[in-house]
């Protein structure tokens, strides 16, 4: 009996050690967090472009009609940056500012500040109009909030390039907090994103299970016939014309969401989960005209791809795809050696800095 207890105790202690090691000693999903940064930046930039023509009607100088229902908003100070009382030009400047911070986030220029400003401006804007907000806003707000605690600048960012250049000059990295501190925050944020994603998919799947149209496999037919969700009516008709196809897509949508967290547990089912969920999001994005929602979700799903896989893709692009493209493009410019190697810590690939 005592032997059993001590074995169990040792097992628990070992698992706690593993957990500590996982949380404290290194950062996980560093590529995934960087991909999320790029996608959220892109979402915000595309949001600004797509809504530019209607900005005054929806949130700006022509949006005062929604004042009577404004008090229903749960948002208040300090998210009051945008106002229907602003003159049209001022609103336009503020609106474009969201696009600017979105670009900064995309390219990873002072990433954490850019992410916080993006959150602040995005929330302020969409909370201004209570009848023009959708699940994109919830997904982006909540998930980007978690990511603010993570290092989203590790790869493919201007911040990373700046750090590489510092290192190439032989300067020590700027560090105001100990490494374990940022590691714990980063890993905590990654766990938060994962759990949030699980809740989203499982709740979305579970809430469909009791719906009669999801049970009889016809549900996807209906949104494809709503005016507001059919950018391509002929395509929606085509997609919903075959009843077997409608059945398959309907059941697939329920099951891929419901089982998503469990499919992640084994490597080969993880591939099914990710390909399946991406397929669902691409379908929603194109057919129902919700690409920004799809992107906001897929950005977070990217943390479930291993860093090793991303690194292999990066290596392939750097050593094969880019040189191949260069050759295919013609030989106008002399071919330079591949810019990026396998590891992003290939400090000093910039000739100017390599001298030091």
């Amino acid at each position, binding site marked *: 009996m005592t032997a059993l207890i001590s074995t169990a105790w040792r097992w628990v202690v070992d698992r706690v050690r593993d957990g500590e090691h996982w949380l404290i000693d290194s950062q996980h999903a560093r*590529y995934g967090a960087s991909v999320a940064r790029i996608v959220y930046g892109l979402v915000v930039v595309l949001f600004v*472009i797509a809504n530019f023509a209607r900005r005054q*009607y929806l949130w700006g100088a022509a949006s005062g009609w929604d004042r009577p229902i404004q008090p229903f908003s749960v948002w208040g100070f300090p998210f009051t940056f945008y106002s229907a009382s602003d003159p049209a030009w001022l609103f336009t400047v503020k609106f474009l500012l969201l696009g600017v911070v979105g670009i900064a986030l995309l390219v990873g220029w002072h990433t954490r500040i850019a992410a916080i400003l993006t959150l602040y401006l995005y929330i302020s804007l969409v909370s201004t109009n209570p009848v023009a907000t959708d699940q994109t806003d919830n997904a982006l707000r909540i998930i980007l909030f978690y990511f603010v605690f993570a290092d989203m600048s590790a790869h493919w960012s201007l911040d990373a390039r700046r750090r590489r250049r510092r290192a190439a000059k032989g300067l020590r990295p700027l560090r105001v907090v100990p490494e374990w501190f940022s590691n714990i925050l980063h890993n905590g944020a*990654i766990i938060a994103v994962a759990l949030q994603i699980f809740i989203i998919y499982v709740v979305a799947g579970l809430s469909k299970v009791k719906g009669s149209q*999801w049970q009889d496999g016809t549900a996807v037919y*209906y949104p494809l016939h709503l005016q507001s969700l059919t950018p391509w009516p002929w395509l929606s008709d085509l997609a919903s014309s075959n009843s077997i196809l409608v059945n398959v897509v309907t059941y697939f949508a329920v099951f891929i969401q419901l089982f998503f967290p469990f499919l992640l547990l084994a490597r080969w089912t993880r591939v099914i989960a990710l390909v399946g969920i991406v397929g669902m999001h691409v379908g929603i994005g194109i057919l129902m005209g919700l690409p920004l929602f799809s992107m906001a979700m897929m950005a977070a799903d990217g943390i479930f791809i291993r860093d090793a896989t991303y690194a292999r893709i990066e290596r392939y692009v750097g050593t094969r795809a880019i040189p191949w493209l260069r050759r295919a493009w013609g030989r106008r410019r002399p071919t330079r050696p591949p810019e990026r190697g396998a590891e992003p810590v290939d400090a000093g690939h910039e000739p100017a800095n390599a001298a030091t």
Partner: protein
Amino acid sequence: MQAEARTVERRPTPIAARVMAVVVVLVLAWHFLATYTWNASPNAIRQAIGNSTLTSYMIPMFGQSWSVFAPNPGSVNPSLDVRAIVERDGKSQTTDWYSLTDRSARNDVQLHPIPSRMYLNDFILANRYYASALAIPTDVRNEAGKTYGGPVWPSLLQRNMLTELKVDSSPTVSAFVDYERTVLGLASEVAVARWGSHVKQVQVRVLKTPVVPFAQRNQKVTPEVSYFVDGWRPVTRVPGVDTAVFDSMFKTGNRS
């Protein structure tokens, strides 16, 4: 989610790191207990946490609702329509109904790979306005179908509805009047942009047309349309609104 192959030397873990790790795990545990409970149906865990504690923690930052297209997806197309009485040369004329939602679908959704938020705005407004009207008992709701004039028509309408309900105040009636003012403000700006400054009165309605059920999609079915028709109201301009925007969107001949 594997760690990158960075050089990690196994150093003794500082006690502060251990403490912080425990704190982060506890915060995550609480946060996702709250998030899960928030998303679940009302249950004993929610009662244990306390509804108001949970709400004040989740709202506004973590407000969320993921039962999308569920239990069944929406299957009703709303139409937010406006028409006006135009007085010209002593003669008054009633215009045809004009659908704001049709315009949005045609000009802002169709053929747009990334539709703007116009895919929501008039549609959600139509749905919420309709719902706020239907929340009022039928005989009291009929009051809204009457013609109202004068600048203080919203308070008159509200008072008459409260009198019929024999109550001093009603959140249902207030919500309806708030939506009524919103929709009438929008409709008035649209009417003036579309039919000119001779518009004397405006009227709005919401039509709800269900999508033909899947099983009958290849048959000739006339769907049963539900509707809410509001009474005539005076032109209710929105103070300080940029009318040029409405002109560019709604003036006859402008196709944007």
